[in-house]
């Protein structure tokens, strides 16, 4: 044992001396483990694809492939796409975290607002960048940081208000250094936000909604009404308990009280890499789906709130516990609430779906929508009017936009 450890150390030293060629070789080894089908920037090489239906019924996609974020549109419901336009010519070290993806919203006048995260240094500090197109996606403005702060930012979320205001929220580490300098412990990251009144050309100065939230999970973002964004996030409660919380803004600059979605008691000093999903139905009900591995409950859960997030229904377990249910996404359309998630049986990933016709009180039996035998993006839902689609990128089978039938 001691001998082999010594030999390993000497080998480590030798490798250190040879670091340059070894590094090149190691990188080659790793490329075989890519979750992308190919290395180009085209849609079929994407690892993350985000859809958005504009008011005119045009489908827009933003995707991550080959170190670029690209955008294309489809006027025939995903049958064919316009030529892909990369939002920047330079190759970027895009945030590849499991919960990272490019974000895209398109306002009623056809302006496209895009945001995404990059790793800007060797220590994997993140930066949220944004751009927009005012010529229907033909060209994009130079990339700009969402905030002037140089501390790490990740996990941005974009949403469009009824009047075209673009609201953005993200996780931001700027309060860590001052806390440490003052001798205080600092956990997690701050939930920051800003908004744009000029179609995503510029954003107001960043402001803090809640400090010390979990730093490595996506945010759920929706509007409860005009000018009233709602954010669901994995918070850090007393004792490193990483359970979910919700905050509703009274206007675009004023976050309200933070309420707990559920007491799962997931005490963990780690990155769960599993953020929540949020939808607000026309009735004003909040629908939230999340993953936890807490002492009180483990797995995937759903709950709703009918009082603006103050209280939530008893969490309902989603999916088959022995099939690793994960990556939930909830969408509320005028007459249905739809949930999708992934299940895995050791070989195959299946997207499961269930629907509620009574605003989340009762649900249809889960049903399989699609499956794949290799790496895949999180399943997402998107709607054009009442028609709901599953949007899912898979390594083996490419991108699919699949219409979902009536499940009631």
């Amino acid at each position, binding site marked *: *044992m*001691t001998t082999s*450890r010594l030999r*390993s*150390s000497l*080998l*480590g*030293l*030798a*490798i*250190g001396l*040879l*670091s340059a*060629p*070894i*590094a*090149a*070789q*190691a*990188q*080659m*080894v*790793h*490329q*075989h*483990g*890519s*979750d*992308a089908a190919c290395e180009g920037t085209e849609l079929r090489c994407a690892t993350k694809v985000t859809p958005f239906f504009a008011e005119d019924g045009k489908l827009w996609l933003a995707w991550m492939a080959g170190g670029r974020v690209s955008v294309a549109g489809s006027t025939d419901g995903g049958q064919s796409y316009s030529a892909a336009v990369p939002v920047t010519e330079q190759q970027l070290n895009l945030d*590849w*975290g*499991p919960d990272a993806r490019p974000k895209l919203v398109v306002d009623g006048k056809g302006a496209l607002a895009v945001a995404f995260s990059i*790793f800007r240094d*060797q220590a*994997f500090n993140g930066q949220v960048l944004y751009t927009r197109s005012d010529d229907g996606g033909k060209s994009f403005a130079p990339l700009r940081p969402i905030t002037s702060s140089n501390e790490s930012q990740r996990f941005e979320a974009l949403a469009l208000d009824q009047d075209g205001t673009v609201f953005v929220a993200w996780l931001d580490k700027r309060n860590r250094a001052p806390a440490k300098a003052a001798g205080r412990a600092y956990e997690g990251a701050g939930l920051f936000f800003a908004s744009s009144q000029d179609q995503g050309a510029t954003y107001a100065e960043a402001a803090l909604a809640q400090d010390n939230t979990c*730093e*490595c999970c996506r945010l759920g973002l929706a509007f409860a009404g005009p000018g009233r964004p709602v954010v669901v996030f994995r918070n850090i409660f007393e004792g*490193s308990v990483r359970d979910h919380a919700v905050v509703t803004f009274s206007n675009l600059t004023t976050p309200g009280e933070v309420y707990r979605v559920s007491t799962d008691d997931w*005490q*963990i*000093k*780690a*990155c*769960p*890499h*599993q953020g929540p999903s949020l939808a607000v139905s026309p009735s004003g009900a909040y629908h939230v789906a999340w*993953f936890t*591995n807490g002492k009180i409950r*483990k797995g995937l859960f759903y709950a709703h709130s009918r009082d603006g997030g103050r209280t939530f229904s008893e969490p309902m377990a989603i999916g088959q516990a*022995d099939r*690793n249910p*994960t990556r939930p996404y909830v969408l509320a359309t005028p007459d249905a609430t739809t949930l999708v998630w992934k299940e*895995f049986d*050791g*070989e195959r*990933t299946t997207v499961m779906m269930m629907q509620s016709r009574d605003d989340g009180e009762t649900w249809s039996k889960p049903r399989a929508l699609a499956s794949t035998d*290799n*790496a895949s993006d999180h399943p997402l839902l998107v709607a054009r009017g009442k028609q709901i689609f599953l949007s899912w990128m898979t*390594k083996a089978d490419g991108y699919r936009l699949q219409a979902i039938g009536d499940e009631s």
Partner: protein
Amino acid sequence: MKKTFAVLAVLALAALTGPSTAASPSLKPFERGSWREVLRAHAGRPTLIHFWGVTCGPCKIELPQLGKFMADHPEIDVVTISADLVPNLSTATQAMLDKAGLAGAENFIFNDGYAERLRFEVDPSWQGDIPRTMLVTRDGAIETIEGSAEISDLDKWSQAQVRPH
């Protein structure tokens, strides 16, 4: 465009064939079947298996502590597995291991784009959260620590492993 790819392919080939005979890389690819192989290779010896990733904040704090733990406990086999799913991150992974004093451990990096399948082989209920530490006793009993481990707990566990049975 095609020409560029051809040149890249030649360079790639050179990278694969050139230095690989000089020394085997410290980072081993973790692929289908690797988990079974790790358990088999360390069977009968107390082993600490640590899953981590270069972008995980808590991992950055814990890794040097594990480096010290390894130095203090030569009787325990230490295995690290980078469980992030990342293109081109081997260099950063190796650099962090070196800095943490873990270059001498047996170090793996996920090398299958289908990360769900790799994780399922390790533990069907693991959803990818890191850090995560698995403590394997001589008789193969596994205890899993979710999140950052307390080094005092690891010390206690390792002391229990050296006691005569």
